[in-house]
């Protein structure tokens, strides 16, 4: 590389404090884009994953529970809880018009468990009729679950082959699910036989709040997919009108709350990114203006040697681009270092489903953040580059400009 071409690099190395400040500023810009977009996209992906996992149009729960507890917290946000209603409601609901698919679910919260530091929600399903959980459990575990076989969520500290004890019953971990970014990552799944056995054990140990139930005659909730030609609204209205002591809820409405929270969080992150960017670009603009002002004579000397206006502007832009790229890379790495290892902390803090994009997605966000930071540096230096290309060499050399 010729001495002239190496000049931008030498200038950057020769002014370490100035260069460090410029790199730091662009790193901050890139970090906000990288971190912000990664968090927002992970939240969106989490919501999509949750929607896909729910897989039912309507959920029917005991009326009393619907008014007492926030069902959404149990179903969507990982809170533990359980409630039961008589199995006969299943038949009553199934008789209603517009029912396509229908399947019961059984809930149980473990009192303590060797596997987890947090109370675990156990969800049981009926393999005969289930249309929500079985399909994606089958992807992780190709066979049918046997009695006392369980499948654990990705965040639980249990692995295939482990034995977990729930209410004195030893359960065998048959599979571990892929990460979903939802409350299902901390849930244990079992078939109807297993969960009935566990409910019975909890009753035997007098650790179940519903002391007078018969596990064979209860369900926790009923999941429904509307039949062809019927909407979820129609099914919900029909059940709520004709079946007493239960409440039908449209699952999309349950997600609406999360979707609203997500929009709020996205908006706050967007505002933060915009504020950091406006401030960052203004500071960069000032930094480049000051830097170029203090180096006017240096540029005049280059002009005396025969550097054209274009070459002077190129030096300023190259310096901005180099610091922008270095800062951009630093910001991206910092963003990855914050978001990747601490994604569960972010998820817990935001209390929203959070699913990181794959390697390809992360690479795209990294590249976008890098390009944005380098472009911001180049754009902020653009005015200085233009001004320096217009300098009146004679006047600067005379010390009058």
């Amino acid at each position: 590389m010729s001495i002239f071409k190496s000049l931008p690099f030498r200038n950057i190395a020769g002014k370490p404090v100035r260069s460090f400040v410029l790199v730091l500023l662009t790193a901050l810009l890139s970090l906000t884009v990288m971190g912000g977009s990664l968090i927002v996209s992970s939240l969106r992906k989490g919501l999509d994953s949750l929607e896909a996992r729910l897989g039912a149009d309507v959920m029917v729960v005991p009326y009393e529970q619907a008014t007492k507890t926030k069902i959404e917290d149990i179903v969507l946000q990982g809170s533990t809880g359980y409630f039961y209603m008589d199995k006969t409601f299943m038949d009553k609901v199934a008789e209603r018009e517009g029912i396509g698919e229908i399947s019961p679910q059984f809930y149980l919260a473990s009192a303590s468990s060797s596997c987890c530091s947090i109370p675990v929600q156990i969800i049981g399903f009926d393999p005969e009729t289930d249309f929500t959980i079985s399909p994606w459990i089958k992807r992780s575990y190709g066979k049918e679950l046997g009695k006392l076989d369980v499948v654990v969520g990705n965040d639980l500290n249990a692995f295939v082959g482990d034995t977990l004890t729930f209410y004195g019953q030893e359960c065998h971990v048959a599979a571990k699910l892929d990460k979903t970014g939802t409350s299902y990552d901390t849930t244990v799944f079992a078939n109807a036989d297993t969960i009935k056995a566990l409910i019975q054990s909890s009753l035997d140990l007098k650790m179940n709040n519903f002391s007078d139930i018969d596990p064979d005659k209860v369900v926790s909730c009923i999941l429904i997919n509307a039949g062809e030609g019927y909407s979820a609204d129609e099914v919900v209205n029909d059940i709520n009108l004709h079946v007493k002591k239960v409440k039908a809820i449209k699952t999309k409405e349950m997600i609406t709350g999360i979707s609203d929270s997500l929009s709020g969080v996205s908006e706050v992150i967007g505002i933060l990114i915009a504020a950091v960017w406006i401030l960052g670009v203004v500071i960069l603009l000032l930094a480049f203006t000051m830097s170029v002002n203090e180096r006017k004579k240096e540029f005049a000397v280059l002009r005396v040697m025969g550097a054209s206006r274009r070459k002077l502007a190129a030096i300023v832009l190259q310096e901005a681009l180099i610091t922008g790229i270095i800062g951009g890379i630093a910001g991206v790495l910092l963003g990855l270092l914050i978001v990747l290892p601490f994604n569960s902390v972010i998820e817990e803090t935001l209390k929203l489903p959070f699913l990181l994009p794959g390697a390809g997605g992360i690479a795209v966000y990294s590249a976008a953040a890098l390009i944005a930071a380098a472009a911001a540096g180049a754009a902020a230096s653009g005015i200085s580059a233009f001004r320096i290309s217009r300098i009146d060499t004679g006047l600067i050399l005379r010390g009058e400009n």
Partner: protein
Amino acid sequence: MILKAEKLSREFIRESRGTNRFIAVKETDLTVEGGIFTVIMGRSGSGKSTLLNMLGGLLEPTSGKVSYDSVDIYGLSDGELSRLRNGSVGFIPQGQTALHSLSVIENILMPYTLFREDITEAEKYAEELMERLDIAELKNEMPSALSGGELRRMAIARAVIRKPGIIFADEPTGDLDDENTETVFGFLRDSARAGAAVIAVTHENTASKYADRVLRMTAGELQG
């Protein structure tokens, strides 16, 4: 090379002096030929540096024209004029003009590398110039380690590295001691003897003993 200035003048707007128009250089005609060392003397503020900057293609005149070998330099595009300055003009500006991120040898070679990569030939000549100007030992030093006289000699070596046809020197001995002053004027005289047209503006009377031609500048007027 023949440098010719015709009816060259320059006005400035200077409100601080109580008047909007200030004529730094009144209409001036000047011809300088290769092999001649011309010294323009005058008091500070007489318009010497303004005239030199206009002659060197660094400051556009208010009126008149400057030509090198009949080429009107202010009629050229910025790219063309820059190339011409790089190849045919050596300019030693007033004051310290080192590029502080580069070493002494890199500073000297800089004009050569503006338009080309291979510096082998120029490197040899740079070493020869540094020998002549007695700064050979400072080749790899950074400018911050040099004295005022050494920096000035470095600037001179840098101005002549391209073996220009015209050399301009603006107060080349402004802050130098007697010994350095003799070295600098001696070098400029030798450059003129080697064929370059050399124009130096100075208020140093010593310069006249090296010059082939001495002109005086008073209140913007050049007198032969």
